[in-house]
């Protein structure tokens, strides 16, 4: 149990998927301009991460059993792509409000490296099913935290007088650098809580 909490806290803060592991930078920079889109995108990512972790775990067991580990990448990305499509169709049919909220982000998630990244990480680290799910949840929540915080930073930045040559993407990246720096400060938490 302690280990699971550690996994969650680590995914959320110390090993934040976006700010310290550099997964999913494209949506982090592209979709973080407004708070509501940031939340929508992160919710879709958490959803797909959990679904694909649950789906790829048994598949991976099968692959290992048959000595076909080298097919992991191909199969995982296909599973994720198929899953995203299926989720889209199901949501459209049965959960219209949720679809309206998340739908537009779903096609973008297939190429979000955070999803494939977390699935591959779970396999690499040899996590059990429960650990994999918790790790994915932590990674997803970490993604959301980074997105939401950064949306706030960018909101503030709109009213700032930015030097001409940094306007646009460069100042966004410099701001991301500062947010990332602040996350460095969480390093002691895991140790302080005696989690590992």
């Amino acid at each position, binding site marked *: 149990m302690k280990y699971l909490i550690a996994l969650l806290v680590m995914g959320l803060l110390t090993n934040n998927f976006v700010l310290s*592991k550099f997964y999913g930078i494209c949506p982090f920079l592209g979709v973080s301009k407004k708070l509501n889109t940031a939340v929508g995108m992160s919710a879709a990512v958490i959803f797909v991460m959990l679904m694909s972790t649950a789906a790829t775990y048994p598949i991976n067991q099968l692959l290992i059993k048959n000595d076909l580990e*080298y*097919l992991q990448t*191909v199969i995982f990305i*296909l599973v994720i792509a198929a899953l995203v499509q299926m989720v889209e169709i199901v949501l459209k049919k049965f959960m219209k409000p949720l679809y309206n909220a998340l739908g537009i982000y779903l096609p973008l998630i297939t190429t979000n490296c955070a999803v494939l990244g977390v699935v591959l990480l779970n396999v690499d680290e040899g996590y059990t099913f429960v650990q994999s799910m918790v790790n994915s949840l932590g990674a997803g929540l970490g993604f959301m935290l980074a997105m939401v915080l950064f949306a706030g930073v960018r909101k503030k930045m709109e009213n700032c007088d930015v030097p001409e040559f940094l306007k646009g993407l460069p100042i966004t990246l410099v701001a991301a650098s500062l947010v990332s720096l602040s996350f460095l400060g969480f*390093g002691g938490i895991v*140790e302080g809580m005696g989690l*590992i």
Partner: protein
Amino acid sequence: MKKFSPKEILMPTIVLFVICVVASALLGGTNMLTEDKIASIEAEAKVQAMQTVMSDAVSFSEEAQASETVAYCEALDADGNVIGYAFTVSENGYGGEIKIMVGVNTDGTVRKLAVLSADNETPGLGLNIKKDSFLDQFIGKVNGIAVNKNAPSGNEIQALTSATISSSAVTRAVNSALDCFENEVKGGAENG
């Protein structure tokens, strides 16, 4: 929705299927070609690490799994006498698993360390555990090594700046190797 002709449904399926089959076949082929090479490289890296931590040894015994995280093998000299042990220990670091090899002398002191893998440590901080200046601090230490951030003395080692978690992970790994040495290896030898 428009009506689909069978061709419109079948064609994409067949094409996709054929692509998948060809791709899997190619991968299978490459795997057959590289499998042995990859396995031999991994084995070689391990042997090399063993030779680093027990440089006097001529050969090593089969590796025995002492617990879930600790494995060890005996280092033998030319006459087949045991001159020390090489422990392989995994421990949780800052970003995931750290695997290190600990060379232990027959008197229970640390001979030398080597980092086998620390893939998820931060470059510039945690990854500095690979540096000799950090690893060599452990030489000659005995079980119960402690981490000190400022002025280490006695059986203590100096933690890396801003990488206390990685430093203590290595220390824990060394201590569990020494634990294993005292409880299993030495104890086992006395009993047997």
